[in-house]
């Protein structure tokens, strides 16, 4: 088993393109989001204005409500003509369109645009004097350290990278080995299926933990993540999550010689997991069935536990339900994977 473990590590590390990409990919995504959010380009809403010369637009000179010029998260996009702007509105490139003239505020909005719907309310609100709200609403300040989006996103990116590497790096690779006869050659030796699968698993788990460590500290150097919990606790969660996802990779790898089919199958698992397990955004407001589907996905528990520790400072006992579920899922995956494993079919 040790020989297979060492051989698999050599295989992974010497495949420089694959190894480099495993580190570079999450780093690039985190870096990309870091740049987007640190440069203030993270405006959520796009408000088109016409007629305006894009080359010489001065926001304070625009003939639109003053409030709209000062709102955060609204980006004003100038257009020379109405036709040009309407085309962008119809294609959801902007969320609402305002005319830059006249005493009466005139705007266009697409009925099929959710962001346009919200922005329309904001535009209407912008013509109401601020003191109208004074006696009707009370603003409360959020106390404590606020979590930046990048801090919330980072565990998701790491988890997503581990998911892809586990499923493709184990599932896809073993199917390729089976097709090319490598597994058949191993079957002709005294190596048992358990030894082979265990070596694959241990190798991949250690390599993924190592690459995650490199990515973490590389990204932390540039973005100074706010770590609320203990590094040991988060290591335990990453270990449990990685074991679970690698075990899932072993289930995918247990049969088959068709690489294209395996590729499609892995994508079929990865994409729902990426969206429903809250890698990029929360599904807090999603319908009940979506949340129920998310509950059967291992990445959901992995990211939930990781974020509780990293963002909220939770302890291991706080995330013990998630860790228990991950370990139980691992056992089920390992049992199915080893039961169905075939060297040649």
């Amino acid at each position, binding site marked *: 088993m*040790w020989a297979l473990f060492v*051989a698999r590590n050599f295989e992974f590390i010497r495949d420089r393109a694959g190894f480099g990409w495993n580190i570079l990919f999450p780093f690039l995504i985190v870096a990309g989001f870091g740049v987007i959010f640190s440069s203030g380009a993270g405006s959520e809403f796009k408000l088109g204005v016409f007629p305006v010369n894009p080359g010489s637009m001065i926001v304070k000179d625009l003939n639109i409500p003053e409030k709209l010029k000062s709102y955060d998260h609204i980006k004003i996009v100038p257009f020379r003509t109405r036709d040009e702007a309407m085309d962008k509105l119809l294609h959801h490139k902007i969320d609402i369109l305002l005319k830059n003239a006249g005493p009466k505020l005139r705007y266009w909005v697409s009925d099929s645009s959710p962001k346009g719907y919200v922005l329309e309310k904001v535009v209407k609100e912008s013509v109401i004097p601020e003191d109208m709200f004074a006696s009707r609403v009370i603003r409360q300040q959020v106390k404590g350290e606020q979590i930046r989006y990048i801090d919330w996103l980072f565990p998701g990116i790491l988890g997503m990278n581990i998911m892809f590497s586990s499923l493709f790096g184990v599932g896809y690779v073993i199917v390729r080995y089976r097709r090319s006869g490598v597994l058949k050659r191993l079957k002709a030796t005294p190596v048992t299926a358990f030894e082979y699968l265990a070596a694959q698993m241990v190798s991949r788990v250690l390599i993924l933990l190592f690459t995650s460590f490199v990515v973490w500290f590389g990204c932390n150097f540039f973005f100074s993540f706010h770590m609320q919990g203990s590094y040991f606790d988060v290591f335990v969660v990453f270990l449990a999550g990685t074991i679970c996802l690698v075990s899932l990779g072993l289930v995918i790898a247990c049969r088959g010689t068709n690489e294209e089919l395996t590729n499609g199958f892995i994508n079929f698992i990865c994409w729902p997991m990426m969206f429903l397990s809250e890698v990029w955004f929360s599904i807090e407001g999603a319908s009940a069935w979506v949340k129920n589907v998310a509950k059967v996905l291992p990445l959901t528990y992995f990211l939930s536990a990781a974020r509780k520790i990293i963002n909220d400072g939770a302890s291991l006992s706080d995330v013990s339900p998630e860790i228990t579920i991950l370990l139980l899922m691992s056992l089920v995956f390992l049992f199915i994977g080893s039961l169905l494993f075939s060297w040649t079919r």
Partner: protein
Amino acid sequence: MKSSLNIIEVKNLKKAYKGKKAVDGVSISIPKGSCFGLLGPNGAGKTTIVEIMENIIQPDSGDILYKGDKRNKTFNQEIGIQFQHTELLAFLTVEETLKTFAAFYQKHLPVEDILSLCMLENIKKSLNNKISGGQRQRLLLGLALLNEPELIFLDEPSTGLDPQARKHIWNIIRDMNDNGKTIILTTHYMEEAQSLCDTIAIMDKGSIIDQGSPESLMDKHCRDENTPRNLESVFLKLTGKSLRE
């Protein structure tokens, strides 16, 4: 009753794929220390029989006895296999590949001896994905010999090799056989079978159609003055001249 003289025996072996018979009631007894050649056109069932004997695939019916008993856990420790088509771990060197496989066995030859025997010393630091087809064949043979096997299965061991490399591999096989190792060889090269094997079985359509020493087969099938006295004549006479798969 156990037959201690035969290292491996197969009895009434049958195997079909999707209803098509690949092996149809084959029985073979291979004496210890012999070099047994299995010849046949493409699709005759040679590789299927050999892979059943190797325990790679399971037969539909029939018995396989190794040293007179059912094969057990020690079987894989005592056999060596060179498959017809095998890829290796691409990013391991030749030497690392041998060391990795050596670790699977309770006893094995020193890796340096195998490197020397198969003339792999000058490429021992080369990655498997950088070596030539001939070098790969020699490495695969080295892997088959690594554990000093008692029984060696060689499925077309010299396919794709140049004449020099082929002669070299023949010498290795002959030396192994002279040292008491049993060899089961499939090949399309009649000269190879004639040169190495003491017993040859000719197969077609899943059955053995004749078996004997090269001399006895030639005596039997090359009586006609117009028929050249060689194994190719025997082969063509028994399997016909029509093109196969």
